[in-house]
């Protein structure tokens, strides 16, 4: 909650975040180890929450990634540039919405 508030404040103060490149973002997502906890398509699992579809806004995303003190370790600029972060966000935004579980018979047993 604390970080969501910080993120919201930052979002208001820095509305013009750079748009990223989804293709580059996929590469960065894999190279920087995001897939390790969140899966290669950001689907989430036991080790990390689902990031896609519909990731949180870039500004909030950035604050969380830079300052996480929970289960996720922080990624500071020294190891993940702002440009890479924006690209990763663009990749997550590009991931299409999942099917409705009611349309998947295996999930209705």
């Amino acid at each position, binding site marked *: 909650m604390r970080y969501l508030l910080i993120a919201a404040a930052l979002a208001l103060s820095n509305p013009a975040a750079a748009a990223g490149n989804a293709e580059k973002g996929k590469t960065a997502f*894999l*190279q*920087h*180890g995001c*897939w*390790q*906890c969140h*899966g*290669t*398509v*950001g*689907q*989430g*699992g*036991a*080790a*990390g929450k*689902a990031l*896609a*579809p519909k990731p949180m806004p870039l500004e909030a995303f950035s604050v969380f990634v830079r300052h996480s*003190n*929970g*289960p996720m*370790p*922080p*990624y*500071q600029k*020294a*190891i993940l540039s702002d440009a890479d972060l924006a690209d990763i966000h663009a990749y997550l935004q590009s991931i299409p919405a*999942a*099917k*409705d*579980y009611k349309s*998947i*018979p*295996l*999930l*209705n*047993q």
Partner: protein
Amino acid sequence: MSKQKDVKVGRRGFLKGAGLAGAAALAAPLKAAAQTPAVPARNPVPLPNKAAETQVPPALEVLTEGKSGSDFMIDCIKSLGFEYMAANPASSFRGLHESLINYGKNTSPEFLTCSHEEISVAMGHGYYKIEGKPLCVFAHGTVGLHHATMALYNAWCDRVPVYVVIGNTMDAQMRRPGIEWNHTAQDAAAIVRDYTKWDDYPASLQHFAESSVRAYKIAMTPPTAPVLIVADGSLQEDPIPEGLKLRIPKLPQVAAPQGDSGAVAETAKLLVNAENPVLIADRYARTQSGANRLVELAEILQCPVIDTSSRLNLPSRHPLNQSGRARAHVSRADVILGLEMTDYWNSLNTFRDQVHRTSERIVRDNAKTIHLGSGDLYIKSNYQDFQRFTEVDLAIAADGETTMPALIEAVKKLVDAGNKSKYEARGKKLAADHMADLQRTRLDATHGWDASPISTARLCMETFGAVKGLDWSIVSQSGNVSNWLNRLWPLEQHHHWLGRSGGYGVGYGAPASVGASLANRDLGRFSVNIQSDGDLMYAPGVLWTAAKHKIPQLAVMHNNRAYHQEVMHVQRLSNFRNRVANLSGDMGPVGTMIQNPDIEYHKLAESMGWWAKGPIKDPAQLGPALREAVKVVQSGQPALLNVWTQPR
């Protein structure tokens, strides 16, 4: 050839006789060797001595014997009702081996050939969880026991009895020179004493009989745990002295310790009067009956149950199963009853794994905490599997399952109409929460449903789709598949879910799954194993054991091509230190990936007699492959699908 004499003489007696009267026999090989042309020794194995083999042995040299000590030892082992004995063959128990297959006709127990002692013991671990009684394991002295240690530690941590017999020759003059000395120890059981419940080194056959029965009784008395008996080599191989009277004691029916009646009554009172009681079950249910009774208690109280998944304690779809909301329930509870908890502290506290590690108790200050479990009845010091000390108000040292009927009766006596009305409202809310959690979990499972590598949710649910009409049993789930099995499969019966390794020693999954599949085979059940890649590489030889002994199993690989837990640990430390993790061409940090080259597990399994297919990377191909594999397993053959999966 001279007639062999059936003389009852011990090895000591034989050698003494040979020293006095058989000098010629001993001298002959030396003389023959002296006449052999000098050839540089290349082979350490002694060359055959033709003269010694063709000459008539001296009349006093005893070449055969009647009933040996190991025959009686097998009688003892048979008296305990073992159906199987798993072992990698080894000379230190050759007497027992020969007695089992010839004198004992290789039945009850039947010899299961294993390629590693870790496999033998881990098979026993899985076997017990289905069969409810231990597997017998023979292991080589010293080196074999060293191999067995990891599996014994897992069994110890998981409170599973395994009955281990090792060979060892205490009398120095009886040991063959060289290797037998390397494989002998003064205190052979010392290496595993920290994680076995009891061991003994019997000095006579009668001593063996008594200790073998004692060991079984101790192993099966809660808290259940592995035991070990050392079968001395001389005792195994010496003939039974004529006229020696031996008796095998009867094995008692073991009654587990039940909780103090006053403490049980106090617990019932607290639970009945609580606004928000919570039950947490860890290694509580040893049997279906135990699980049924927990359902009964929970339904009387209409209270949340948190199942830590160490066993199937409560059906996963039961509306009172609130395992997905554990923290929320614990933090608002006014009474918490832990059942056979091995890490109660972790349920009542949070811990942050940061640069500076911190923890916080989440239980309300005025909440009453109770523990009912047998762990306090037997504990050792060295290995820290007893976990952090947990502050509770009442600790009942007794077997949870055995005490449950008394607790239920005590609760029933206290519940009145007013309570029932309150409980009903509580239960309705919990049922609604349970359903909401299930719907949310189903939604979560849709994310990445069509991804390649295949999502672990899809892996699990495609597998369920293929076996749902059968009497299935998940015999192991190694690695981590984000708990989809526990969250989405309808785990209703005790045999549907067997828990995990106990000590978290990787390498448990494959052999334990085969042990459980063996027990399931005899019960006509279908065994499913979600097999991780890293785990399989510890003891892949168990694949051969399964094929050799016709133990059917469906192994669906969770092949994420990594030691994934370590992938995340190293990434975490890299981030804490502001360093980019060194991948060196792999997908994860150096030293954590199982790729480049990728292991073809399907070929590995095929080479050992399994039906196998893979690698399956397209989720659309998984369902058809599973249906094909199920048919193979139903025909009695083990089958493995090598499936490339998402990390978790």
